[in-house]
């Protein structure tokens, strides 16, 4: 039996491709849906490029030169780098620390592990930012009022502070809260799958838990940390809601807000410069992702595999309680505390630098849900878009994912690349592209639900596609083949075997899409209008022109809807896990 050992390994069959066969009906539908998506994306991006050329009067570099020589551009870059850089580093330290505490020590808190990644879904950042303004504004912040009362008892009197959300530290604080979940997710997943015997070996050979963490654990999951950092920088650069709410007050200009201002304030909109600034945004993401690939390619990290369960937890002693308190505080600061701020202002009816529970009422909710046409219409439109747009995006993504997995060839390669492509672009860039492509002739969508629908299809295709692909990848190929062998055709196989088995993953995907579309701000700010309001657009509008109690109430309603649907996600996830 020695000869066999030198034989080449069985070649990985190039998917279950049955190239001899004609397209089935399902596959034809897939190609049509995929085509609509691909055409929208490509047409929008091409229009954007054409726009840049046209704007530069023949010289594609002119908008770049204009953008760079605009007053304040230097400060925009400096502020952006400072805010995003510091926040991402802070967030990485917190996220890696929390992931380690939850996966490897006896400070682990089951609900934190489950809850942390969900915070951006539960409390949309626009709502939590406004909540923090109510709490920690320099003069009128409710927390500041409380703290000043307490400090004056100690003999320290002041009219302002001590907290000030309208500042660089305030900005970094909010950005950090926002970025942590995005780094925590890949890092904790990698730690959960990392063979614990690597750590145990280090302990056996004489290193303490902390040195083991830095010498073995962290180096082993370097690719996940690098991926998390990239994601963090990407999220930070694209974050628009924090800057638009507190940037002006803090005199900090971030890139995302500057681009938005160029497009919406003043006439005509300065699209060329805005797009030029977007290009810098893209370039940064590109450079960072190249660096990340380098780190991953080095190969000096452990391959993740084996069973992650049964790892002996590091005993932190009394430190366990400190660690737990810090984690609970973090979760409170990023969700419960700002939500309380919103609830207080919404019930109080107005925002004043006092804390009083007298005369609380639900008037602002009546306004939001019934009286104010804009807010009630926005809620209706957002829910409609989230349900219909989310479902259609998911259906298209599912069909494309199955098609790509089953068939090789050029069409699949293109669909795969295109479906993932929008993930690398910020919503701002995509929204501008869709605006230039579809608002004018020949489509004249203007600001309408139609253009928002197309935008959300493009924005969330990567999420939906990745969810659907991984749901499909978890189904062993043999299950589908067994159905074919049993005499069932491709359609029956899809309906009876493939889709039912993908369902738990798809339901999770549908809920995530619902929540993301519900709380979308960036695209909505550019693409919605007064006649077709959506929640993100209306909240920004109210921030400039409205009453605070209405915003607060709308924020609470939006958070409640998101949280309810996200809880459904958790429940569905747990239920389908127990079925297996």
């Amino acid at each position, binding site marked *: *039996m*020695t*000869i*066999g*050992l030198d*034989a*080449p*390994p*069985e*070649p*990985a*069959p*190039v998917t*279950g*491709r*049955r*190239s*001899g*066969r004609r397209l089935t009906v399902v596959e034809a539908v897939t190609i049509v849906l995929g085509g609509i998506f691909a055409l929208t994306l490509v047409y929008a991006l091409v229009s954007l490029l054409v726009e840049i050329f046209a704007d530069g009067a023949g010289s594609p570099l002119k908008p770049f030169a204009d953008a760079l020589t605009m007053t304040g551009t230097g400060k925009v870059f400096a502020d952006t780098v400072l805010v995003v850089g510091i926040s991402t580093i802070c967030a990485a330290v917190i996220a890696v620390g929390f992931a380690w505490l939850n996966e490897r020590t006896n400070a682990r808190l089951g609900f934190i592990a489950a809850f942390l990644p969900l915070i951006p879904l539960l409390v949309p950042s626009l709502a939590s930012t406004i909540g923090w303004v109510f709490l920690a504004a320099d003069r009128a912040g409710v927390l500041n009022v409380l703290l000043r009362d307490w400090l004056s008892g100690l003999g320290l009197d002041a009219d302002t502070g001590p907290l000030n959300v309208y500042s660089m530290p305030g900005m970094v604080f909010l950005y950090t809260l926002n970025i942590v979940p995005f780094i925590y997710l890949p890092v904790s997943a990698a730690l959960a799958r990392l063979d614990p015997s690597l750590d145990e070996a280090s302990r056996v050979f004489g290193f303490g838990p902390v040195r083991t963490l830095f010498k073995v654990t962290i180096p082993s999951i370097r690719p996940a940390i690098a991926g998390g950092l990239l994601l963090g920088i990407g999220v930070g650069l694209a974050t628009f809601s924090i800057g638009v709410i507190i940037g002006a007050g803090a005199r900090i200009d971030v890139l995302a807000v500057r681009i938005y201002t160029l497009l919406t304030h003043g006439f005509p909109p300065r699209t060329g410069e805005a797009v030029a600034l977007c290009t810098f945004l893209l370039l940064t993401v590109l450079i960072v992702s190249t660096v990340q690939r380098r780190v991953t390619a080095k190969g000096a990290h452990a391959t993740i595999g084996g069973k992650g369960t049964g790892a002996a937890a590091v005993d932190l002693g009394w430190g366990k309680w400190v660690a737990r308190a810090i984690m609970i505080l973090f979760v409170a600061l990023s969700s419960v505390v700002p939500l309380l701020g919103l609830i207080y202002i919404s019930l109080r009816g107005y925002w004043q630098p006092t804390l009083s529970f007298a005369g609380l009422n639900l008037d602002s909710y009546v306004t939001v849900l019934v009286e104010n046409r804009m807010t009630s219409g926005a809620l209706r439109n957002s829910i409609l878009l989230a349900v219909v747009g989310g479902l259609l995006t998911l259906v298209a993504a599912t069909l494309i994912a199955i098609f790509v997995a089953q068939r090789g060839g050029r069409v699949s390669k293109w669909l795969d690349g295109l479906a993932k492509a929008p993930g690398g672009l910020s919503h701002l860039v995509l929204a501008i592209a869709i605006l230039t492509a579809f608002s004018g002739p020949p489509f004249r969508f203007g600001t309408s639900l139609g253009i928002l629908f197309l935008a959300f299809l493009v924005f969330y295709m990567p999420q939906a596609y990745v969810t659907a692909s991984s749901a499909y990848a978890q189904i*062993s190929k*043999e*299950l589908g*083949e*067994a*159905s*074919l*062998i*049993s*005499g*069932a*055709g*491709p359609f*029956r*196989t899809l309906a*009876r*075997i493939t889709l*039912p*088995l993908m369902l738990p993953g798809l339901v999770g995907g549908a809920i995530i899409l619902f929540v993301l579309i519900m709380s979308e701000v960036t695209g909505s700010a550019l693409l919605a209008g007064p006649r077709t309001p959506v929640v993100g657009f209306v909240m920004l509008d109210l921030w400039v022109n409205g009453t605070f109690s209405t915003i607060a109430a709308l924020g609470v309603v939006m958070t409640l809807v998101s949280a309810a649907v996200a809880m459904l996600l958790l429940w569905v996830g747990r239920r389908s896990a127990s*079925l*297996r």
Partner: protein
Amino acid sequence: MTIDQETQVAAAARDVAAVRAEGLLKTFRRANGTTVTPIDGVTLSIDKGEFLVLLGPSGCGKTTLLRCIAGLETPDRGSIDLLGRRVFDRTGARRVAVPPERRGLGMIFQSYALWPHLTVARNVAYPLEAAQVPKAERRERVARALELVGVAEVAGQLPGRLSGGQQQRVALARAIVGEPSLILFDEPLSNVDAKVREELRLHLLEMQRRIGFTAVYVTHDQVEAMELADRIAVLQSGKIAQLDTPDAIYDRPVSRYVAKFIGTANEVTAEVVERDGATVTVSLPGVLDRVRLPAPVAGRQPVAGERVHVIWRPERTMIADPGQGGDGLVLEAEYLLGRYLGAFSETIASLRDGTEVRAVTAKPLHHQRGAGLRLAVAAADLRVFAEESAG
């Protein structure tokens, strides 16, 4: 068996082959650009009711060949007929590729591929459902199939709750419920432990004899192949190295590859001094001095000056008395160690050039390490093969 198969069977001659593959070729392109040829010109005919085992090391193409018969892979060239019905053809102008769901087969997958969201009964009913068998009949046939494989009691359960052996039986029930004339097995026993494997193998053989389906069975386990097969096809990098009954493959291998893959083989490599019709005279300094051996009966004939492999089975090695000789091979060796294995004993000895050979004897030899031994092999038990030119 579907109706159109039945009519075709009636029309065709009675001894039509269950599977007939001709000139199959399949190449894959790997991600790094190199091409692999898992099936390299395979022609094969399997009789009705036969149990054929495709045997070979991993990477020899046995699973790909099975999947081509199933219709799950598309060969680049060649044709496949099932019971005289052409299901695949890439030879001429008229291209045929019947999809797997219309080939009327049963198959057992390596992972069993039981659908986790359907109960055992619904898993087994699935092929009947696809064939639009009426509900009442479906229920009855499912019950009968589960009864037959001995897992009737788990009909209402989900497959995830079953043991490996039970899952295997359910997979078998699903494969036989539609009464296909051909069932394909893709290493179905590689995921269960040794004891259950033994039991399932017997069960499977009994089932096949009782129902009479044709079986094509892929495995890399030669013991399994020997036990199950009417005929074994030994595969070597995409080609059939030998296709014969188990005993013929063991006793009369047609190549060094087959001889060494099946069972244990002793081997001496010597140089041809002279060739004369049915014999070759070989010599190996210190070990063999101009010994006349039967010429190769298979493969290429060696010329003088070339090296040949002389192969024989350990149990055909005799311990000879000093001075005794025969028509075959006589080797002077040194005793290394002996192993007592109950029913028989094994002796490992070393030739003068360091080659180790094994001899199986009924009773243990009690020698000192280093003691001289004379080994003899009858000419009829020797197989001589020319060096394979491909290396």
